[in-house]
């Protein structure tokens, strides 16, 4: 077991998969030199520029080429330099990748991974901070994953690369260097479609993913000293949602707080709320709460606006405490 950063978990997952299967290749803008956030460092030196492929500045081409290569038998990892730039590729992902298996009556499939570095890392504002997962959420045919820690990051990326279906891998930029953890050195995967209870508790249930999950754990630790015991569930996979785990976690305490960095309206939290409300009415002891940034087009650039917009450990702790005392 070694303690590595979330970024190194992602990098080493790609390296190990490329070593293990020569059909795997990475393509994206600036991936050859190591990537602007160092996610692909060393891959070109080790595997050559055909397998760590620099592309022109065209996200729809990156996705489209990946899709074509995947249908042809390769295992493509398409990197969007920042998730904010994924939108030109949306048509390729939603109209093509998501539908290929269905529209070919199962004759073809599309085993691609689209890596999308999302979330605010600070001073990123409009084009380096967005959380676009709700744009793809609810599209049948796509799998969406969003790990919160290095172990899940490595395991989910490996699982995504080996998966036969298109997977969008949302990696939170803030987690890259700030979250470290123990990761086994031998090969392992984290199954897609399974959430994970990160902390057992009895007073309220907190459901989250990505960087905010780490804030939830920190807040839970602080609340422990006040005698409030929080049950924290890491979704890990956004689509398909692990309904069983969500319902079990919600039924555990009857009070649910859903936290994510994507804005509230139409986000993943809305679907999780609806699922819980639909199936677990008589276990609920309080309204299902969602804590999310305001419905504003983007994080502000000014530090004051940024701080107001983003969630942090304190805001989450307050919301958790209020719900626990309800």
């Amino acid at each position, binding site marked *: 077991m070694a303690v590595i950063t979330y970024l190194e978990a992602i990098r080493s997952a790609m390296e190990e998969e490329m070593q293990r299967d020569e059909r795997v290749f990475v393509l994206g803008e600036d991936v050859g030199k190591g990537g602007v*956030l160092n996610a692909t460092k060393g891959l070109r030196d080790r595997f050559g520029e055909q397998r760590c492929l620099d592309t022109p500045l065209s996200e729809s081409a990156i996705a489209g080429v990946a899709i074509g290569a995947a249908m042809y038998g390769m295992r493509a990892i398409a990197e969007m330099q920042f998730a904010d730039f994924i939108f030109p590729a949306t048509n390729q992902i939603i109209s093509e990748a998501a539908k290929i298996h269905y529209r070919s009556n199962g004759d073809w499939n599309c085993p691609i991974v689209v890596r999308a570095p999302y979330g605010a890392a600070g001073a990123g504002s409009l084009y380096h901070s967005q959380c676009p997962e709700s744009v793809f959420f609810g599209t049948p045919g796509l799998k969406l994953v969003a790990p919160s820690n290095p172990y899940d990051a490595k395991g989910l990326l490996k699982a995504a690369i080996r998966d036969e279906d298109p997977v969008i891998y949302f990696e939170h*930029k803030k987690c890259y260097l700030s979250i470290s953890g123990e990761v086994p050195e031998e090969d392992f995967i984290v199954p897609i479609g399974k959430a994970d209870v990160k902390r057992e508790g009895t007073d309220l249930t907190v459901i989250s993913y990505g960087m905010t999950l780490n804030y939830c754990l920190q807040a839970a630790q602080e609340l422990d000293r006040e005698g409030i015991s929080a049950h924290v569930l890491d979704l890990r996979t956004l689509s398909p949602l692990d309904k069983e785990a969500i319902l079990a976690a919600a039924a555990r305490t009857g009070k649910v707080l859903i936290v994510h960095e994507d804005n509230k309206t139409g986000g993943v939290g809305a679907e999780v709320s609806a699922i819980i409300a639909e199936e677990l*009415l008589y276990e609920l002891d309080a309204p299902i709460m969602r804590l999310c940034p305001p419905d504003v087009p983007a994080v502000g650039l000014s530090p004051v606006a940024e701080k107001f917009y983003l969630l942090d450990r304190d805001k989450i702790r307050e919301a958790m405490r209020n719900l626990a005392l309800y």
Partner: protein
Amino acid sequence: MTQTRAKGTEVTVPHLAESLVSATVSRWLKQPGDYIEQYDVICELITEKVNVEMPSPVGGTLVEILVEEGRTAAVGEAICIIEEPGSAAESWPASGEDRQPDAPAETAPDSGMRGRYSPAVQRLAAEHGVDLLRVPGTGIGGRITRKDVEKFIASGQAVSAPQTANGREESGGRSGFRPGAGEPVQPVMPEAPRIPVRSTGIHMKEYPLNPKIEVEGQPEGRGEYFIDVTPIRHTIASRTRQSVTEIPHAWTMIEADVTNLVVLRNKLKDEFMRKEGINLTYLAFVLKAVVNAIKDYPIMNSVWAVDKIIIKRDINISLVVGTEDFVVTPVIKKADEKTIAGLAREIDDLTKKARAGKLSLGEMQGGTFTVNNTGSFGSILSYPIINYPQAANFTFESIVKKPVVIQDMIAVRSMVNLCLSLDHRILDGVICGRFLQRVKENLESYNLDTKLY
């Protein structure tokens, strides 16, 4: 969060670049006791990406250094304290500072929420026979929480028997209440219910059931009835469909004066019947006229091939033979080499075979130009569909006696309309007009001296 340290403003590590989370202090340029103007450089910071000089955000006296040279501090962590002139300094809005928790006004003994029973509370109360009025509420506004009820049940104060016995599915692991037993219930913490939990009582499936399609009954058999599509009908359908979608049709028509032809035919037909045993129809004369015109305008006998036009040398006339149920087009091969009598014989032959359904495949293929005797069923104007992949379709309409003007005098003549559908990719109005003029000339030139053989 604030430890007992010197009072003043904390100076924290700024967020220097995206994805950086910490920085190392490499050198302090000021020492405790120094007076620092706002924006004076106080230290140097090293990170993975950039090395910077750190300006002081405030002016004042440097009181304490918290992070020594060589040590690393996280973004937002305080590295030194500066005491600003004038005591009450606002703390730099760094993260992790104390903030007033916005707690609801709960501490006042407000019991407005005491009557608000959540679904979980009601269910537990019903299942375990709990009188909620006796349960203390620890939630905000005095609300009775699920935990309060669970605690109440665990303390054994729920005495009456459970009210409902409607067979609603109870998840395993709930604390068993033995009805009638006056013993305290075992204080078991409720586990998570078995999944799937269907507590709403409505059986809702994941996906909607396939809708049943109701077949409406036949309206007493009077509304409509069905006819099977025969293979030949199917062929006609697909061939005409192909022709109409691929060939841009245009259409033109002229009139011809065939009085002389009528006279000629009437004179010869009986003798022809005696000699040859077959009918001498107008069609034979028409075919001859058309074939001669095609020889003068060979473009009428062609096929469109996108980057070229293929002109066929052999003139194979597709003759349209129809009955009430179907229509076929047997082919008279090399019609330009036949005499009028020969054409008459071919026509008779093919028509008989077609009507009997005895045409061979070879007799139906290879046509290059179509002629249709629509006059035989009384039509005076038709818009035929071209036989794909030919270039034109010619119809000979009904011969009608009409008053016409010749040299400024009115005469009664036998007139006939000649219609032509053309493939406008290959043919245009002028060339077709010339072709039809030639056919008209040929028809009008028949007279009593015309030879049949």
